[in-house]
């Protein structure tokens, strides 16, 4: 954990306030939230009263024993409180960093959506949803909002840590503005989209503060199970008193079991380990999400992330590096590679797209062709109608300026270079009486089959050849997908490319399936189809046109750079706007569930050993034969009971790191994972307390504490 955001587990700055908080949480109202620990709390109070009674000389058991048990019961409650406080503290520390950006700032409220409208200066806390505000250069954005007017560069580093400013403008996919960011230049008119306290950040902060955190559905279900176990053991222990009274009468020996011992037995049996750590696990899960720079709007979403069966991943940015790059020039017959490169470079000089720039760069690398000043050149931009871009170099002067271009008739010196998709260029040359030769068609198909995008370059009616634009698959992504497959998660690549190209990239990246030539409605249909077949789907998206699909998906991660509509539709926002994050999110979700399951199993398995410690200790005075069950050969009945109680308290402390960090996640099949965890937490849970109780008993025996009781 070298990341600066990660504090050491028991960091002093966190542990000290957590200790204070642990004491504060001793109030019954705080305990009531957690039924299992509430029972321990009641037990602590009860034994304290019994202890006072015993000290006054009317004890049902030796005062030393009662006080020892009582003290350790209080410790049990405190340890659980401490775990919760520590988890909250870590979450709050992270939240504080985010909240720092949330300081109240001055807002300029507008009366109407126009820059020139009347401005009312007020505190950002008093802004309400649908208020209009003006943000000018140097201002801090007072609330989450949507840009209605204006264009500005915005520094979002406070949220994302990314220092390069981003452009925000009205309409389109860059209209969302996050509160706390700073406008660097120009101005924006913004419509506020969240009331104070309801913004994404506020919701996230609330979720790391346990008191405000709503229990997730699975947490509720688990709590019900824990309460049921607690009630069962309550009946078991309560019935032991009459059983014991009867047995004493029947055997004519010993004394009925004391209330103190019954309380000790009850606390040992009820699932205090998981009960004490459950909320800490939940809070820690949310804070791990925050560490990954993801803001979840609900714990339910984090839980659902563990269940995901299908991941829809956008090709660009997730599977491949940003954009396609020119990889090769494939000339048509009779044209040299350099001629093609030259024409392609000319056509791309004014093309500011990453693809265009990569053509210029490749031509330079291969043939040392430099961009040159062009006079009298008219650049033809890409339009949806022509689906081509290029350049017209017109007039004699322009032609004369070129060297060695003698083949061109002076009168027709106007060069018309076009580049574009094969079908568009074909239409273009055929219209001018040219021929789109089979050789070129072959080159186009070959490139497409390799997963590349073929770009055809033509000059006038003549096809010069093909520029191969290639997608660069991210390093390591293939092993990542293999891991996902092992976890039982299917990956589907979404791309606007044609089927051939998509298939090649899908094969290279190792995804399970792909959706080619995808339109937003295709995405939505695909999600519905998978959900109908009973699978849970996760996806990322940023554009407004992704919003329906995001709303439909079970786990929907919106990019922070995306539109407000996308953010509203999703149930998580990735502040880094990194689509690969989805994989991490799934892992965090799984880890949280696994930690819960593992600790519950461990907690219940522990009970076996505790029975072997306490039952003979409590009843051997009545039936000496029951000493045969004392397989651990503990020093005395008093040390046996106290050892079990101490073990029960210490194990909570010992497992705090596991609860906060989560069970280590491995990408394995369900059956393998289960076998491994059952072995560690189930079988381990049965064995560990035998060793632990024995060791504590030996220590107690060695100190001579409770001797003669």
């Amino acid at each position, binding site marked *: 954990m070298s990341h600066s955001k990660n504090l050491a587990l028991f960091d002093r700055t966190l542990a000290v306030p957590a200790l204070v908080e642990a004491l504060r949480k001793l109030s019954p109202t705080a305990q009531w939230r957690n039924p299992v620990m509430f029972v321990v709390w009641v037990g602590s109070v009860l034994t304290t009263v019994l202890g006072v009674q015993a000290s006054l000389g009317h004890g049902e058991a030796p005062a030393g024993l009662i006080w020892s048990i009582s003290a350790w019961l209080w410790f049990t409650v405190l340890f659980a409180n401490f775990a919760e406080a520590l988890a909250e503290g870590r979450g709050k520390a992270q939240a504080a960093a985010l909240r720092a950006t949330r300081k109240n700032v001055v807002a300029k409220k507008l009366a109407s959506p126009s820059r020139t409208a009347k401005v009312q200066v007020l505190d950002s806390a008093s802004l309400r949803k649908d208020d209009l505000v003006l943000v000018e250069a140097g201002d801090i954005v007072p609330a989450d909002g949507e840009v209605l007017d204006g264009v500005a560069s915005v520094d979002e580093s406070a949220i994302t840590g990314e220092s390069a400013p981003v452009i925000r403008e009205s309409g389109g996919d860059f209209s969302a503005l996050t509160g706390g960011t700073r406008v660097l230049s120009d101005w924006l008119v913004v419509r506020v989209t969240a009331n104070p306290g309801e913004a994404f950040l506020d919701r996230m902060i609330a979720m790391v503060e346990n008191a405000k955190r709503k229990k997730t*559905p*699975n947490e509720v*279900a*688990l709590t*019900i*199970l824990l*309460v*049921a176990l607690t009630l*069962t053991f309550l*009946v*078991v222990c*309560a*019935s*032991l008193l*009459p*059983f014991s009274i*009867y*047995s004493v009468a*029947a*055997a004519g020996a010993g004394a009925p079991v004391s209330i103190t011992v019954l309380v000790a037995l009850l606390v040992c049996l009820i699932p205090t380990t998981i009960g004490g750590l459950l909320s800490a696990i939940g809070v820690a899960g949310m804070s791990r999400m925050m560490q990954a720079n993801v803001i979840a709007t609900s714990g339910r979403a984090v*839980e659902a992330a*563990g*269940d995901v*069966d299908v991941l829809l991943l956008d090709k660009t940015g997730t599977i491949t590096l940003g954009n396609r790059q020119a990889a090769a020039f494939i000339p048509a017959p009779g044209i040299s590679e350099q001629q093609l490169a030259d024409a392609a470079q000319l056509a791309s000089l004014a093309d500011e797209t990453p693809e265009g720039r990569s053509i210029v760069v490749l031509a330079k690398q291969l043939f040392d062709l430099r961009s040159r000043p062009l006079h009298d050149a008219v650049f033809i931009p890409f339009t949806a109608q022509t689906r081509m871009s290029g350049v017209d170099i017109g007039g004699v002067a322009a032609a004369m300026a070129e060297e060695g271009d003698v083949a061109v008739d002076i009168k027709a010196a106007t060069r018309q270079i076009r580049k574009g998709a094969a079908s568009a260029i074909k239409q273009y040359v055929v219209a001018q009486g040219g021929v789109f030769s089979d050789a070129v068609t072959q080159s186009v198909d070959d490139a497409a089959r390799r997963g590349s995008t073929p770009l055809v370059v033509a000059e006038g009616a003549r096809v010069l050849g093909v520029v191969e634009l290639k997608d660069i698959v991210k390093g390591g992504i293939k092993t990542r997908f293999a891991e996902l*497959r*092992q*976890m*039982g*998660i*299917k990956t589907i690549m979404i791309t606007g490319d044609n089927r051939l190209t998509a298939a090649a990239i899908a094969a290279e990246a190792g995804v399970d399936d792909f959706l080619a030539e995808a339109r937003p409605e295709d995405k939505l249909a695909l999600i519905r189809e998978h959900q109908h077949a*009973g*699978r*849970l789907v996760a996806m990322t998206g940023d554009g407004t046109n992704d919003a329906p699909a995001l709303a439909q998906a079970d786990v929907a991660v919106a990019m922070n750079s995306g539109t407000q509509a996308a953010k509203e539709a999703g149930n998580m926002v990735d502040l880094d706007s990194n689509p690969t994050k989805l994989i991490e999110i799934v892992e965090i979700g*799984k880890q949280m*569930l*696994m930690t*819960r*399951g*593992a600790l519950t*199993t461990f907690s*219940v398995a522990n009970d*076996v050993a505790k*029975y072997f410690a306490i*039952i003979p200790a409590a*009843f051997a005075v009545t*039936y000496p*034969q*029951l000493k*045969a*069950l004392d397989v651990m050969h503990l020093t005395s009945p008093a040390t046996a009971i106290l050892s079990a109680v101490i073990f029960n308290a210490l194990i909570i402390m010992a497992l705090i790191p596991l609860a906060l960090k989560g069970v280590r*996640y491995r990408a394995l*099949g*369900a*059956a393998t*994972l*289960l*076998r491994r*965890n*059952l072995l560690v*937490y189930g079988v381990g849970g049965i064995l560990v307390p035998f060793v632990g109780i024995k060791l504590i008993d030996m220590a107690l025996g060695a100190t001579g504490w409770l001797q003669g009781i």
Partner: protein
Amino acid sequence: MNSSIVFQTGLYLLILAALAWPLSRYLASLLDGSLAARHGWIGQVDRAVCRLLGTDAEEDMSWWRYAMALLLFHVAGTVFVYALQRLQGVLPLNPQQLGAISPDSSFNTAISFLTNTNWQGYAGESTMSNLTQMLALAVQNFVSAATGIAVVCALIRGFVRRKASGVGNAWLDLHRATTWLLLPLSIVLALALVSQGVIQNFKPNQTAQLTEAVVYQQPKTGADGQPLKDAKGNPVLETVKASTQTLPMGPVASQEAIKMLGTNGGGFFNANSAHPYENPTPLANFLQMLAIFLIPAALVFMFGRWVGDWRQGATIIAAMTLLFVAMVGVEYWAESHANPLLVQLGMDGHAGNLEGKETRFGLAASALFTVITTAASCGAVNTMHDSLMPLGGLVPMWLMKLGEVVFGGVGAGLYGMLIYAILAVFLSGLMIGRTPEYLGKKIDAFEMKMVAFAILATPMLVLGGTALSVMLDVGKAGMANPGAHGFSEVLYAFTSAANNNGSAFAGLSANTPYYNLMLAIAMWVGRFTVIVPVLAIAGRLASKPRLAVTAGTLPTHGPLFTALLIGTVVIVGALTYIPALALGPIVEHLQLFGEVAR
């Protein structure tokens, strides 16, 4: 281990599987309605019966309506059975002229037979007229078994259906299970038992002259019916000479068949299946044992078929079989050691503990029967359980405490086991990092709440009932044995009642108003605090979509899940009952063998 027990258990399981597998096929087609669709006349009968019951065979009931229909049916049944017992003195088919049964015993018996428990505080031959036996008790034997089948059908529909609002039609399910399954099987079994010598007649009791008169002593009872005691508090004994024997008669075979097939267990005679007219030969005994597990086993296989994956059923059967075999092993081991106190007195201990056992069955068949009858919720006995060795008594007690999920009662065993499966899936699902699901259905808070009810109810009844009884004088009065064994007797009674088994440590005199009332409450609550939550789960599951199985789904078939299921059942059963068992049978065992060693 003795080869006899290995051979008998092996043969038993083999024949059971050979019969249950084909029966499961028939059951699946019967209960999912495809049989009625294939054979028009069956459908016509179904519809006619439903019309007679005032319901529409096509109606698909919500879980709540389904539960209400069953409850209504049971309340009406209780009133009927109660009334018949109270009025039997003036009704026909009463060759022995038996009078009305006391109100508390009638109430207890009515609840007992309604809930498939068949706890018997009375002795059949000296209490019940033939009419009561046939019209009240046997009828309930049929419909209480059909109730179990209906409930498990509703639960399976919950797993199979997608986004459905109903779980089936209670009346149709009850009728189908009774008419097309229990009746035909009972007829076949009754005839087979008659061939072995089980009686079937309406004669009054016969008196036979003994070839040699028997002289024995018995406690003298006073005018109030209580045993007389002398000045020192010892019972006053009187010497009796008997030269004749009364042979009770009655329609036994027809009662006997459904007693086994429906895992009811209520014997015609007080001695139950130890009585030679109920269970005359080793073959009859074997058939009775087969009949107990036949439908429970077939239902598990049917479950696999119905959910579309036979391995799901096979996995549950495997868990049940392993638990069963282990328990048979312990039972036989415990019983093959004779009481060391008797051995000390010079008895030959090699034959094992034969007290309370029938020599025509022997040790192996007795041990096997004991485990079968308590693994299932049958409760018929061919051995006196009170005479079992301490650990031999612990085995049947613990099998019942597990909720009778080792094959279990008809229907009840499977739905009980599925509750455990949901519990197992809940924990293990989390451990693989997914919110839990079983057979494609997510297990949420509602299901867990219902599982909690179902699992909590019986321990509360068993431990609470026992605790109350050992505190109260009316409770302690019934104990025949002081000390730990007396405790075991009460514990056994409440265990048997709350889990609807019906077998008993007969040492406890339970036909008292206190026990009749307490045990009736335990039986009724024990039955319906499981049935209603199970139906609620069924309804909720049916309304959910069915999720796809992927490589990331927890596999609920195969050895790992079998082990997990066994682990869950054993851990829950052990943690809940170890303290009580420690003060009962465990300490009895330690006392008995510890003392001898000293």
